[in-house]
Every structure is written in C-alpha cells, then in structure tokens.
C-alpha cells in the first residue's frame, strides 16, 4: 500500500521478496521509470513498515537504501518473439512472458481451453465457494516463501500436504472427507455423451451446482486427450483456493500416490504455471486460462516439476494479466500403496448433496433436531446483522424503499388490526401500519437492529414512507418490539389479525426451518386473517434473464468501519477488545472475527458474507402447500422477490 501511492499506471506494483527467512532486500517492480524515481526520492533513507503479499508478515525496515535499475531493456530483449512482437516496456523482469518459452515443449502436457462454459463456471463456483462448501480443517501448504494457510477441499480421499501422499485409511479422523460427487446411475449408464451433456445443461440451468460438478467430473473421465489418452478411473479431487498473489511450491506429485494422468481445471482466474525439467535445466511457462483443463501425463507428470510463482500478475504473449482469486480443481486417480499392488483405490462417490463428511464433525444433535439453529445462520446471518445494524438502518432503512405489494397489503387491512411483523429489522414497515390505523408488534432476532427502530429520527431528508403524523409520534418513540426467534414466536395462538414476514425466509437454511416459520405465522394469526411472506427470488429480473448461480449463496454486504464502531457499542461485537479508534483497525478486527469476512484495504470496507437461500418459481407455493391450515390467496413476483398472500383457515 505504500508503493501503490507511487504507481501512476494503476496496474499494480510487484514486490519480490527472496524466499529466505531473513529478508535483506527486495525488488520492487514499477511499470514506469518515473514512478520508480519518485518512489526512490520519497522513501530514500526513511524507515518503512510493510507486509509481504501472501505471507502477511510485517517487516519493519531500518533506513531504506534504494537503487534504481532500468530493467526494461532486458525484459524487452527476452520478450521478443520470433514474429518481432515486442513486450510492453517497463514490465518487471521477474514476471517473465510466456512467449519466452514458446519454443519449449513439455511432452505429455496438454491444455484444453474452454473445457467448461461460463455458465458452468458460475454454477460450479457458487457451489464450491458457497455456504455448503466442505472446506477441510485449515491446511498448511508449502510454498516458495514458506508455508501458507490455504483453504482446500478433498473429495474421495484426503491429500495430505505434509506427507505429500493420499490418506488411504479413511477411518482415521484426519482422513475423513466427503465422497466424490456422483451423477445419477441411469445417466451414467448411457454411453451417449449427449445424455451426459444434457444432464449437465439442465443442472446448470436449475442452479444445481453439485450435480453440475458431478457431471463435469464425468465429462473429464470420458474425455479423450491427444494420443488417445483417457482417464476413466479418476477417484480423487482436491479443490485449492489461490487468493490473489498466492502460489504453490515446485513439486512433482508423489508417483506412488497417484496414477499417470493428473488434471487441473482452473476457475475464475487464469494463471501462469512454470514447469522445470531438473535434469536438463529447461523451463517452460504455460498460461492456464480460466475454464481450461490442464493434463499432465507421462514426462509432464513424472519428470517435470511444476509450480506457481507468488506474485500478483503474469505476463502472457506480451500482455500483463493481473491475477484474481483462482479456484483449481485437481482430478487424480489415487493408488493403493506399492506393497498392496499400487492399483487404483476404490471410487467412493455419492449423490447426496450438499456433500457431507462421513463422520459429522458437528455435534450429533444437528442430525436429530432439524430446527436447531445451524452455525451457517449464526455466523452468516445473526452475527452479521448484529454487526451491520447501524449501517443497515442508516442506508436501507432510512431510504425508505417499501415493496409496493407489501405496502398495499398493509393498507388493505381493516383499521384497528393488530399486525405481527416477524423479522421486522429496523421497523421499516411500522409507519405504514400506524398510518393505516393499526398496531404492529415487531419481533426480530437481532437486538441491535431492533434498537434502531426506536424513535427513528425524523429530519428534512426523511423519506415519506418513514414519516409519522404527530398523533402517532408516541408509537414511533416506543414501537412494540421484542427479541425473538421466528422458529418459536412468543405470541399466543390466534393473537393477531395479520402478519407480514419480509426478507426473512431467505435467511433460513433448511427446509424444516422454512416450513416451521410458515407454521408459526399460521399459528399466531387468527382464522380468516392474512399473511404476507416475501423472500428473494433466484430470478432477478421479471424475465428471468439475470439469475443467481445457485439456490444457496453468500451475498456480500459492504460494511463501512465508521458504522461498525457504533454497532460495536450497541452490542455488535461485545467480547472483542479494541483499543484503537482508527477505522481500518476496526475493519481488520471485524474481518478477523467473522468467518469469511474480507477486509478490502483499498476501499477500507469489511465485506461480510450473508447466507441466503433463494427461491425458484414455485418454491414458496410448494412450501405453503405443506402447511394444512394455510390457503394460498395470491402469489407473485415483485422487484426480485417472490411473495405469497396466505389466509389462515
């Protein structure tokens, strides 16, 4: 971040730290000589503190000594291709262009571009990085700059990075992992590839990421590579998450662990992989674009080491390509030990989705009681709303955008109705209910959010929907709210005339909990009374052209630290000790405390991930039809939401 200040091109600055434990010097690659000169002039002789890209270590430097080296000539010379194409001047020389090794061939290496389509990629990513992704307990993966904590998933058999081998005895806790995703037997039985492809297409269309993944794995098994090579016995998959700038140390996959034929599918971002034949001291640089499948067979698999350099950009055919988050799916055939004959391990697969470990590593209770609050909701719904309550109220709440259908439902109620607003949040719909002459009792699981509903301040910029006439100010100052879980509403049977439940059902992560919510609404509303339920639709346009890639996703929320500070004081993060008042320290603290929250340093935001379950056309009606005392009056789509109006029988 110190060097970014001097980068006039905005393409980013590369910092190369030698891979030794004690760091004496580093190279900084600027894209323009003027930028480098300015950096030297400003920092010469100063003390500076900075972090390495991937390792996150903090280096406190003594007085800096900076020397300028014009390295662009060298990179131009090496980057020149036989067709005379010149590499862009000013590229750091460490980020060698792949064209420098165009003349080298690695026998057995094959790259299949566009192995998956963009739609397939989206759906796969939604599953693999979504709420049900079976991340393994944090792995320490060796890389050139030391070891790195990387998120990995294993299917079929666990690959252990420390021993660089497959864990074959699956009874041991460390060897537990989900089975390989499997396609339906009747699809698999058909040899016609079109049957498989149609199944994949349908899975993608319906946002069934795990089924699509199973289909893609089968597509890989059936693919014929050059020289008639194919690998139908793939029985192991490792998913690696490479954050920007991360690499992996140089290695050959343990020959006794995996058979010939290793495949790697790159998703979301391309990357340059380096191959080195140690005997002949030859190097080959290969750019792996997103959605491509890499095959390593024969010499490429057994005689050439491969690795990914730790840096934030790659240079391919003269073009500098910045790296983004890359997810790699490595597909391999795990073998029994040489003593046992070294034949392929039995394929362990299942079509139970989302994939689960054989041994539940959560408390057994979650299996028995489907209504218990899942950790996904605790971490990615409850805790997040508690933390963002103030910002939520200031931005969305205050903006006062009410869904027209929901508002009309409230205006249509007879005067003097008692309405339950389940999951009322900051009380956005309260004024509409009061102005209609009715009384609202709001419940929500988040106390910080509820508190923002009290005495909602009124100013010149208060939107009309949040304004309350003067004889109802007493209601606004003391709204009727209670902290409660929609799974167990603290209201008597038949105690209210109507109920609304807006933007709640998409935060419930199991079928049983969604059903329970509807049952509770049906219980508290008197017979003849009506209920309005609204939740996010998978189809985001009325004509379904824009869709979420899966039914269960993480939706980001960009939280500003200034609001987080306030939430903290009102109970957002009670147990954290924070001595510093600076915004970015607050942001970092929150990012560390929340699973999956990211700290966007440049924007100074904490990006929380909220768990959301999205409803497809017909899903909500199906759910309601399973509650005997509810009758469907109307259903529809409004502004990215599906809604139901139900009557209690």
């Amino acid at each position, binding site marked *: 971040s110190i060097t970014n200040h001097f980068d006039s091109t905005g393409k980013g600055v590369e910092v190369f730290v030698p891979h030794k434990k004690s760091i004496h010097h580093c190279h900084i690659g600027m894209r323009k000589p003027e930028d480098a000169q300015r950096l030297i002039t400003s920092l010469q002789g100063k003390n500076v503190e900075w972090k390495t890209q991937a390792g996150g270590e903090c280096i406190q430097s003594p007085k800096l000594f900076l020397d300028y080296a014009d390295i662009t000539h060298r990179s131009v010379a090496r980057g020149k291709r036989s067709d005379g194409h010149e590499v862009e001047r000013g590229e750091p020389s460490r980020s060698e262009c792949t064209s420098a090794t165009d003349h080298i061939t690695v026998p057995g290496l094959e790259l299949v571009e566009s192995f998956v389509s963009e739609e397939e990629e989206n759906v796969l990513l939604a599953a693999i990085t979504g709420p049900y992704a079976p991340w393994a307990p944090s792995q320490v993966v060796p890389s050139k700059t030391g070891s790195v904590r990387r998120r990995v998933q294993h299917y079929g058999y666990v690959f252990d990075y420390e021993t660089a081998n497959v864990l074959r005895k699956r009874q041991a806790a460390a060897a537990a992992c989900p089975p390989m995703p499997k396609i339906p037997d009747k699809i698999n039985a058909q040899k016609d590839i079109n049957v498989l492809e149609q199944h994949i297409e349908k899975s993608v269309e319906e946002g069934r990421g795990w089924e699509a993944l199973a289909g893609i794995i089968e597509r890989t098994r059936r693919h014929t590579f050059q020289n008639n090579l194919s690998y139908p016995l793939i029985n192991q998959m490792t998913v690696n998450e490479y954050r920007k700038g991360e690499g992996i140390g140089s290695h050959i996959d343990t020959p006794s662990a995996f058979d010939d034929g290793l495949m790697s599918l790159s998703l979301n971002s391309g990357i340059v992989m380096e191959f080195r034949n140690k005997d002949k001291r030859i190097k080959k640089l290969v750019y792996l674009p997103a959605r491509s499948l890499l095959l390593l067979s024969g010499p490429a698999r057994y005689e050439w080491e491969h690795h990914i350099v730790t840096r934030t950009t790659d240079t391919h055919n003269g073009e500098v390509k910045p790296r983004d988050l890359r997810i790699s799916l490595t597909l391999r055939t795990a073998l029994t030990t040489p003593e046992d004959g070294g034949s392929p391990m039995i394929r362990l697969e299942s079509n139970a989705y989302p994939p689960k470990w054989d041994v539940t590593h959560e408390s057994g209770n979650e299996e*028995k*009681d489907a209504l218990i609050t899942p950790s996904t909701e605790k971490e990615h719904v409850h805790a997040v709303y508690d933390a963002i309550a103030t910002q939520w109220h200031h931005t969305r709440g205050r903006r006062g955008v009410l869904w027209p259908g929901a508002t009309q439902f409230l205006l249509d109620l007879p005067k003097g109705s008692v309405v339950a607003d389940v999951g009322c949040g900051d009380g956005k719909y309260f004024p509409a209910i009061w102005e209609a002459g009715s009384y609202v009792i709001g419940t929500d*699981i988040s106390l910080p959010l509820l508190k923002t509903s009290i005495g909602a301040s009124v100013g010149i910029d208060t939107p009309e929907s949040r304004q309350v006439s003067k004889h109802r100010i007493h209601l606004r100052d003391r709204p009727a*709210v209670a902290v*409660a879980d929609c799974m167990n*509403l*603290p209201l008597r049977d038949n105690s*209210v005339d109507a109920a609304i439940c807006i933007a709640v059902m998409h935060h419930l992560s199991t079928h*049983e909990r969604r059903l329970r919510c509807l049952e509770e609404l049906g219980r508290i509303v008197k017979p003849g009374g009506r209920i309005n339920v609204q939740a996010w639709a998978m189809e985001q346009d009325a004509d379904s052209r824009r869709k979420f890639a899966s039914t269960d996703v993480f939706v980001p929320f960009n939280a500003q630290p200034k609001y987080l500070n306030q939430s903290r004081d009102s109970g957002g993060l009670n147990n954290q000790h924070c001595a510093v008042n600076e915004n970015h320290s607050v942001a970092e603290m929150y990012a560390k405390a929340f699973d999956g929250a990211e700290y966007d340093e440049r924007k100074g935001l904490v990006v929380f991930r909220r768990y959301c379950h999205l409803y497809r056309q017909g899903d909500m009606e199906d759910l309601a039809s399973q509650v005997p005392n509810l009758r469907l009056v109307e259903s529809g789509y409004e502004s990215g939401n599906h809604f139901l109006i139900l009557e209690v029988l």
Partner: protein
Amino acid sequence: MRLLTHNTLRNSSQKAKGEGFPLKITATEIRVEEAPVLTEDEQQLSFVKGILGMLDWSALVKAASEMGLENALPPMLTEDLVKDEDFLRALFHVLMNVHLVNGILTCPVTGREFPVMDGIPNMMLEEEECEAVRI
C-alpha cells in the same frame, strides 16, 4: 412494552405446552405517557373498537393491576361498556400509554423469566427449551 403488547405475549417453550400466558409482570420502572387526544378522538375510538375482539380481557385486567393500575378496569367486558365512549377512551389510555420500561415477565406455568429492558422484552429461548422436530 405496552399492555396491548403484553396481551399477546406468551412463553413458547416446550415445557409451557402452549399455556405460558399471561406472563406475570414484575415492574421496576414504569412510564406513563400521554398520547395526544385532541384532534384524534375519532381515530382512537375506531382503533380501540377494532382491537377489542383480540383482547384477552382477564389477562389485561391482571396485567393492569401488576402495572399499578388497580381497579382501573372492570372485571368483565359488557355490551354497555363497549358502547360507552368514555370507557373506550380510558381503555385506550390503559392499553397504549402505560409502558413497562424495565422489569421481568414470568411464565405462570414454568416460572421462566424474561427480562424487559428499555421497553424491549427479550423472549429468546435456549435451544434446549424449544420444541424438537415433530417426528
């Protein structure tokens, strides 16, 4: 928490078996706030008439006395009272203007206590108190 709100609340724990109502009020801080009456008489009256049907009257009478309003309400709701506009105005006051700011709500069946702080009752139950999946 107003008396109107209290009238709907119950302990929903499994042990209470749906009978955790009415919750006994132990008040440590009460505030009586006057809602403006002047121009809004019509609206207040129609509001009170509208909600009459939803009220559990005996629970309301008991709660009112626990909030310090002894004998503020008659023990039974009669036809005559419903037509009496003065009565309805007084009822509006009892339902809407008497606030429990701090205190405790206690389940009559199990004794389970729910705190009320700054007017907000916390009705959250522990997982063990909740009804398990109906098999």
